[in-house]
């Protein structure tokens, strides 16, 4: 640390000016130094695995696999389960923005899912709108829901938010249960799909869902890495310090909450199309809890982790079908075991130098 050479940058009084002016000049030495240390501190195999997990190829591979699934197996059962799993992935990456990136504990996330599904279901069944036309209205409805609940509570610290969102989730469900135009306890049925495009209807819906969910995963991951994503993390780590750096913490939290609401709302549209019938029990507290579990199980703030977490949570009960009545007991036990042995999540968020420069440095080091 007392190394003289590290102080060289400041010897000239003009350092401030040059730091300010020379945006474009490239000085790769520190990046290589940083990446070199981190790369050599990992074993070659571990480094290889973590580089692969961070690489764009992983996401691309997963996206291709998701799109190719109907070509591999087109049984109605597989497609049905796969659509459920994809919708669950979308909910998980949406909640990851709120809980993982920004650290706001939301226990009523299913409320936005319900708002999306009901808005879309009502407009399509009562007013005969094509499903795709309901999407902009769903986005607006999700934003309004987010404003109503986030506005008063995001000024408070996170514990209060958890309690209020828990109540909000139940209010939405009970309201849907008691109103006539939402169909009361019977809910809405006969919700159309997006059209079959000359394919088997469920496969067409699968591909539409896959495209939307892949875009959602990509966008949530990219949001997390950009300026707003960093601000979310700063707020999660220390609100006062973030504020002292000029970050308007209230607005930043709001942005996270609204972004999460939009993801949840759009997932609701897919859910309505997939189920063709929705009713209040589809949006109970268990949903909110399971989505939150997917985020925590996979690794908070880590997109690959959250996707894997969501797949585990949604597919594990299917894989345990043979255990019949013991299914959910085993499911719970497995989750407990996971959390004991991987408390940081299955694929926790990585550190490292982000951006093009980090990638260059890493390729140079490997």
């Amino acid at each position: 640390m007392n190394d003289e050479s590290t102080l060289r940058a400041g010897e000239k009084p003009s350092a401030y000016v040059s730091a300010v002016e020379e945006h474009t000049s490239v000085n790769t030495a520190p990046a290589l130094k940083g990446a070199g240390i981190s790369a050599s501190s990992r074993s070659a195999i571990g480094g290889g695995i973590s580089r692969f997990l961070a690489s764009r190829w992983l996401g691309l591979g997963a996206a291709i696999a998701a799109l190719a699934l109907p070509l591999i197996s087109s049984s109605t059962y597989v497609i049905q389960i796969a659509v459920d799993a994809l919708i669950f992935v979308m909910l998980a990456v949406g909640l990851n923005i709120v809980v993982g990136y920004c650290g706001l504990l939301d226990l009523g996330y299913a409320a936005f899912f319900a708002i999306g599904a009901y808005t879309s279901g009502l407009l399509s069944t009562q007013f005969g709108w094509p499903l795709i036309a309901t999407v902009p209205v769903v986005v607006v409805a999700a934003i309004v829901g987010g404003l109503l609940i986030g506005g008063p509570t995001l000024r408070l610290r996170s514990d209060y938010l958890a309690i209020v969102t828990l109540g909000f989730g139940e209010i939405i469900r009970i309201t849907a249960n008691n109103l006539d135009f939402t169909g009361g306890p019977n809910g809405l049925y006969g919700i159309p799909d997006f059209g079959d495009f000359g394919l088997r209807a469920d496969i067409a819906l699968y591909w539409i869902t896959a495209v939307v969910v892949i875009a959602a995963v990509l966008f949530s991951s990219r949001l997390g890495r950009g300026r707003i994503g960093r601000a979310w993390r700063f707020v999660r780590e220390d609100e006062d310090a973030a504020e002292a750096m000029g970050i308007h913490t209230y607005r930043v939290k709001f942005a996270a909450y609204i972004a999460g609401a939009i993801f949840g709302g759009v997932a609701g549209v897919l859910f309505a199309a997939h189920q063709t019938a929705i009713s209040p029990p589809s949006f109970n507290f268990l949903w909110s809890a399971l989505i939150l579990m997917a985020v925590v199980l996979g690794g908070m703030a880590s997109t690959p982790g959250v996707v894997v977490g969501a797949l585990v949570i949604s597919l594990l009960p299917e894989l345990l079908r043979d255990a019949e009545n013991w299914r959910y007991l085993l499911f719970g036990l497995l989750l407990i075991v996971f959390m004991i042995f991987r408390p940081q999540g299955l694929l926790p968020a990585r550190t490292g130098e982000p951006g093009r420069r980090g990638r260059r440095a890493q390729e140079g080091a490997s």
Partner: protein
Amino acid sequence: MSKGKVLLEVRDMAVSFGGVRAVDGLTFSVHEGEVLSVIGPNGAGKTSAFNCITGFYKPSRGSVTFDGTDITGKRPAVIAASGIARTFQNLRLFGDLTVLDNVRAGMHVRIRQNFLDAMLHTPRYWRGEDTAAEETHRWLDFVGMAYDRTTQIRNLPYGEQRRVEIARALARRPRMLLLDEPAAGLNHGEKDQLLDLMRRIAALGIAVVLIEHDMGLVMEVSERIVVLSYGREIADGTPAAIRSNPAVIEAYLGAEDEETRAEAERIAAEAGSRGTAEVEW
């Protein structure tokens, strides 16, 4: 004694907690590019004054003007964006994040990027991110942070964390930097480097306001010293003038009799001559 025009003007500022008047009618000013120390016994209201200036406390009375604009009671983020950066007495870094991301926090308000840029990775996104990455390394070089910059902050030694916190504040490109006890917990070598760093920061034209208990460091680096006691300013002057000011000596030692005062003066003189030696009043 003072140079440039007045940058920060604090007038009759007061804040109290319950019945305790932490700051009670404080008035002082900071000039452009000056190195000013705020000293005073424990509980004199130094950190409370910092918190009032930076918006973390709302002053119950008085005004704070920065560069001609009234910032009294504004949100900390607004005050920070107007050009005041600070560090905290007990480090407030983002523990789980990397060194690089911590410093990038200072650049948040300058990076132009919206949701669509981030989602679609537009050319503007890459321009902003590349520029920020570049500047982050420059500031870390400036403060002499030589460790792996991709590690999480909480894995760094304490002295390095202090450097990163200053780099983060500098990345805000402030016109005034408030340092709250930056030498606390540093060893001798690190204190010497801090002294050098503060001088280099001042050379960039940034006004430095320092709260510090290490009198050697204060006497060495300050152009002017403001002394607080019970939330008020009791003295304001050059290090030499402060060192021999009877009111200051009394505030620190409660010294009435000649003998104790002579002792205090001896310690002060010694602190001045020993540079950054550790002499706590």
